[in-house]
């Protein structure tokens, strides 16, 4: 698909309750960022920058429950829908990771191209 949405392949590539990663690089190979794409057990898909707002833990490796992922490093709970940290702690409040707009169409996953390329849209709270 051309245009605003980038086709990243069929939904079957990510098992429910799992996440997979998508590194985004410049032409010279340096990493812009890595995106984590999640498939929840109630069959929704979400994409976030794969960097916990706490200390940059790889969210893709956390346990997914509901539409929340628990970061593997220090167990912050991050909303897959908004990228916000859900805890009440002083550090957690207001912390959030950029989300990448995603849509599923005819069994394929699409990400918003501009966000993938690094112009990540700020999440709900920051907006």
């Amino acid at each position, binding site marked *: 698909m051309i245009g605003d949405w*980038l086709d990243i392949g069929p939904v079957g590539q*990510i098992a429910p309750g799992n996440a997979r990663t*998508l590194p985004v*690089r410049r032409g010279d190979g340096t990493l812009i960022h890595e995106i984590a794409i999640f498939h929840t057990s*109630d*069959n929704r898909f979400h994409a976030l920058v794969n960097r916990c707002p706490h200390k940059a833990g790889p969210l893709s490796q956390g346990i997914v429950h*509901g*539409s929340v992922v628990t970061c593997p490093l220090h167990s912050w709970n991050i909303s897959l829908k908004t990228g916000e940290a859900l805890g009440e702690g002083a550090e957690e409040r207001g912390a959030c990771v950029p989300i990448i707009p995603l849509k599923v169409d005819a069994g394929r996953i699409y990400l918003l191209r501009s966000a993938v390329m690094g112009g990540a849209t700020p999440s709900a709270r920051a907006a």
Partner: protein
Amino acid sequence: MNAPMNLKPRMNPGDQRDGAIREKLVVVGNGMAGCRAVEEILARDGVRYAITIFGAEPRVNYNRIMLSPVLAGEKRFDEIVINPVAWYEDNAITLVSGDAVVAIDRAAKTVTAASGRVEPYDRLLLATGSDPFIIPVPGKDLAGVVTFRDLDDVDKMVAAAEKGGAAVVIGGGLLGLEAAHGLSLRGMNVTVIHLMPTLMERQLDEAAGWLLKAELEARGQTILTGADTAEILGADGHVAGVRLKDGREIPADIVVMAVGIRPATALAKSAGLAVERGIVVDDHMVTSDPAIMAVGECVQHRGACYGLVAPLWDMCRALADAATEADSAKGYTGSVTSTKLKVSGIDLFSAGDFSGGDGAEDIVMRDAARGLYKRVVVKDGRLVGAVLYGDTADGGWYFDLLKRGEDISAIREALIFGQAFASGGTQLDPNAAVAALSDDAEICGCNGVSKGTVVACINGGAATLDAVRGTCKASASCGSCTGLVESLLALTLGDEYGGERAEKTLCKCTSFTHGEVRRHIVEKGLRAIPQVMQELHWSTPDGCASCRPALNYYLLCALPGEYVDDQQSRFVNERMHANIQKDGTYSVVPRMWGGLTNPRELRAIADVVEKFNAPMVKVTGGQRLDIFGIKKEDLPAVWADLNAAGMVSGHAYGKSLRTVKTCVGSEWCRFGTQDSTGLGVKIEHMTWGSWMPHKFKIAVSGCPRNCAEATIKDFGVICVDSGYELMVGGNGGIKLRGTDLLCKVATEVEAMEVCAAFIQLYREQAYYLERTAPWIERVGLEAVKSALFDDPEAVAALARRFHFSQSFMQDDPWAKRAAGADAQLHQHLAEVRPFPAAQMESAK
């Protein structure tokens, strides 16, 4: 009714209307949407159009959704006809059935049918429905592979069922399950193959999907979830079975493909109309050609395609308004849909968006005794989704609330109990509602305890929930009445009731403690995480990061060899079989039995460090080597190299046996009393690979100088001249605790037997994430001793259970990954590089 028909209308289509020639309306598709659209048009203006309907099927219009009851033998075809021959005749409609339209000439405004018949139109309506999707596997064209879309498909299935045998249904969605149900009622041996782990995953969550699966299995169907079809096997041109990608083969006399539908757009596409997923229409169901309209499953409206009938009715109304230029032509704005499964005896309802989280709040109610699961999702004070299993009486009410989008905050507390409760003006304060109950009202259904009994037991001194559970058994079984009992405690004790449970619950998802959950799993014979959540009334749909790993462990411990580990319930380290580091890379610790190594192992480790540019390699506190900085993509290759040198996973990441530290012992040391190194190696071979409530460390010291630090280990052995002192419950770590002496034995064999028995006792009794030190502090050393030694058979019995469990566990997880298992956990999905043309390359 199966022969092609060409009904001649009684009225002449060329009839005059107020002196003008009637406009010619041609409808392609004699199905549910096409005919309903015609009905709606006729209801508004009976004489405006001269109508011709083409239908590819050789019959009149019938209610397609009732094909399921026809297949199940609950209805006959004539009972599901919507528009009989007389309807076409009475309305002067020419029906051309059994003749598909194959081309549209938009310039000449004609359609051409397969028979060669050409029909001119002023207005054309496309209502071609959907085509069943066929997965492109070898064997898909064999005789005996059928879809489930029209009456011919049903006839084929009925004919196959008459011969008996086995049926495989590919696809565990609505359609597939209805096909499976029908075939199974007709006596076939049915297997459903579903790609996803949850049946009907588009409509159900994990909890409801699990209940459905359990029910269908109880009815004799075999349900294989997470199963991917590789090939349909044939013999003499006829289907003979299905082979899955994991190699399993299932014999079949008929294979039903029910994996999904695609809007039937070929005709529209070849006519040059705007087609994306479906035929693109505006709010008046007009396509990119103003003379051509489209309706039903074949269309795409505001980006959405539908696969259910309810939206079609709304579309047909909007279409008819526009086609007759009705004043009230508001247009179609899209539909919210709900789903019910038409399998007799299974009540299931789903509507809206039930993905939880953020602003969206889940309210879950479970009643294990009645097999009930209800989940409603509320967001910004509005109901946005509902899943009901077991009792769908309130489905319509929820659906209505959902569509109206009204603020439901006022009934929020009572919402989950359904319409009668929420709108019945019942007191919303739960305490007040409980206070209003009579003394003989039943509080606990499982144990038949009345309100009077509970109150008497509280007045008799049971001042906490645990005390009530212990005395009169109320809320001690399934726990669904916990809230009621707590209300009674609050009402009876007033300010004296602290509201605090003596022991904390496992997590916020349940009112049970770890101990209670463990006991229920064993007593009720629970076998899967969703089942535990259902039977014990979890308040969330799929648990949280605390309870999922705990339940996974409890089930694994209770059902050795049977329970299938749930990867999604494992903390990252146990899922990746390596330790995650702060930068997201992993560290790899191969096992070094008893701390011994050799040149071959050391060389392999050195090679791995160089080959994968590992930035650091370190001797650990557990007497082995740790290789740092390995990327998740490289782990399988690293493991393959280590495996090749004979090394297996060291489980440095697991709630499992970690290390067995040893000292040099009698082989070399001048003070050594026994072969501590040899015993340590033997113990490690016996215990490696076992999953535990928490990590477990062992050490064997050759004399009381204790160079292996055995007295701060979970299980320590101090060798002495006369034998072995077995020490337990030690902990370095955060809270230092020295071991207690468990017993003294004379031989290595006894030492190993007691070690196995002690581990098994810990595995069976401790709470998840409780190490041996806090476990022994909690239950007391005497209790541990008495569990092991009061009954002279106990040690042997526990050890036997440990060895049995080990027979399934001692299987190197690295070797499987190195051989390619779970490759998706290690690979990136793809990689994006914006230059030159922003295209992607697969990383694979």
